[in-house]
């Protein structure tokens, strides 16, 4: 369950599972589950283009930490009948196809609770996921969740925010495995002009408490941002920028477009081995 960033800076790519953008092939939510082959193809292309970790986003009806881009992607994915079990099946497929890629299930808490925390832990481990990130799970409420993650040897990844005081960062660092996800700024997911000054200060504060890699996300959308993040963190998380690219692409073009985008994130700069 090691999550390794092979290059510097590492790249974590978020995909809303089941979203095929604005021009979806008409698919039927068959009894065996929704067709997530489009997300599979994009994820494989992203890994082959240099993504170290794929965050598979479970669509949720009320994504209150997300901006309009991921809200729309969640609505589309749900309209296509995407269910948690489909996302877990996709994870298993990705693990079989790319044994060394990092794989994180990214979700709001309620779909996991409804599925059953214990059943989810077993299924995520069986699928070969490395870790789990729950957007609305804070360390104080995480007792049972942490026990389940430990039981099945999955990495719980917690979010750290610029507003988190040091004692919270300490608890977040102590309970996280895999990596710590540092939120670059106060706010919801979505693009921004530049990497907030908050981000570097936050990463520095997190490092006082852990030797885990630190990934910076929220608003990271181009090569300049990734380079900037690379100056102080181990990895950058790209979410809304790629989800928006998928939204604008045809289903056939999306994997190629995402691959080119990811290559471009590191392209202008020398690639260093860690």
């Amino acid at each position, binding site marked *: 369950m090691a999550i390794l960033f092979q290059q510097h800076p590492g790249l974590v790519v978020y995909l809303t599972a089941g979203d095929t953008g604005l021009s979806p092939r008409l698919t039927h939510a068959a009894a065996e589950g929704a067709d997530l082959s489009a997300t599979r193809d994009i994820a494989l292309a992203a890994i082959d283009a240099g993504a170290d970790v794929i965050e598979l986003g479970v669509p949720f009806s009320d994504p209150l930490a997300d901006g309009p881009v991921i809200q729309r992607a969640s609505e589309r994915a749900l309209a296509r009948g995407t269910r948690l079990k489909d996302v877990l099946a996709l994870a298993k497929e990705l693990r079989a196809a790319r044994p060394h890629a990092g794989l994180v299930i990214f979700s709001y808490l309620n779909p996991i*609770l409804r599925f059953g925390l214990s059943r989810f832990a077993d299924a995520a481990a069986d699928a070969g996921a490395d870790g789990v990130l729950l957007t609305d799970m804070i360390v*104080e409420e995480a007792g049972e969740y942490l026990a389940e993650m430990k039981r099945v040897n999955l990495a719980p990844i917690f979010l750290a925010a610029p507003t988190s*005081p040091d004692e919270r960062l300490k608890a977040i660092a102590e309970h996280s495995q895999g990596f710590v996800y540092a939120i670059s700024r106060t706010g919801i997911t979505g693009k921004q002009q530049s990497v907030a000054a908050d981000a570097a200060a936050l990463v520095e504060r997190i490092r006082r408490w852990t030797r885990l890699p630190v990934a910076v996300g929220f608003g990271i959308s181009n090569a300049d941002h990734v380079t900037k993040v690379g100056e102080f963190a181990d990895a950058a998380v790209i979410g809304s920028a790629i989800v928006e690219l998928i939204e604008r692409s045809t289903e056939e073009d999306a994997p190629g477009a995402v691959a080119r985008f990811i290559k471009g994130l590191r392209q202008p700069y020398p690639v260093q081995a860690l």
Partner: protein
Amino acid sequence: MATIIHPAEQSEAASNTPGRFGAYGGRYVPETLMAALQELEQAYAEAQADPGYQAELASLLKDFAGRPTPLYFAKRLTESLGGAKIYLKREDLLHTGAHKINNALGQGLLARKMGKRRIIAETGAGQHGVATATVCALLGLECIVYMGEEDMRRQELNVLRMRLLGAQVRGVTSGSKTLKDAVNEALRDWVTNVRDTYYILGSALGPHPYPTMVRDFNRVIGIEMRQQILEKEGRLPTAILACVGGGSNAIGAFHQFLGDKAVRLIGVEAGGRGKALGDHAARFSGGSPGVLQGTYSYVLQDEDGQVSLTHSVSAGLDYATVGPEHAALHDCGRAEYVSADDAHVLEAVVKLARTEGILPALESAHAVAECMRIAPGMASHDILVVNLSGRGDKDMNIIARELNIQGAQGL
């Protein structure tokens, strides 16, 4: 460390963990909000112990809002139904037209005390939005209210009132464009502007400390009610009825009576237009435990944990989850939860208007409808107290349309 406890393991409504009501409640929020919630919890604790703050709140509740509200014996309604004696707790007479001002004043003063000058709020029927806009005008604070576009359409009068009061009303177009979506958008604003913004949440919902704090600001309803009924009748009522959306007026009315086991506490949810998921907002009969908008409670959801759409003729009850303390009171059996459908609610509006000359809000009319259902089967020494949480002026357009009032002699 707190954890999600299976409800079956809990029998007591009260729990010693702050923010927990039995298995329910808690804090399930993005990490960015945690520092603000802890700051709020601390500031609220300080305010409770601050005589200056308490005196200012008491003074405004009395002279600005109009407390205490009367407990009124509804003689003609009682005679017409021919059973239990019915009293109305007249929260509808408060300034701005509903109990919402109790909480808005408490939190508005707290925001000012904390030095936060930018206020955000969500609103469904618009009553909390109007109360918040009013308090912001009173205290000179900036006010932004999130409201679903569907609710802006059906409660247009309240939108105009908020704007007149100087608030900015931002329409929300996501989801069903109702209260749930307005709460999502208010939370997104708060996550973004958390350093200088105070979120006046309008019901006993959301992450700790809101369910406790909003309840406390509404406890005055039950405290007055208990004293008034003892003065008038020399004994406690058989039952107290209140509508339950998020549940702030109900928990405010119930709380003082929790220890009086002989007093039935009846919460009335929105039965909407039918029993199918999506046609109502009856969380206890149609929902199951889950996490929505920061708290663990009963949620209307599908088998995948996706939150369902809801329907009610009343915007204020049209919501997919319910305050966590109600969930605990439901599970331990201390309170009963029933629902009233749209048709019976409209009947209740007409009945109360024509027997008592009181036009109830559509939300509050749910409690009146349940009262009309049970009163005839009760004895004349039984006493029912209905918490009339708001007045119905805001609903005239909906009522006229639903009842197809043509001229003065419709119905």
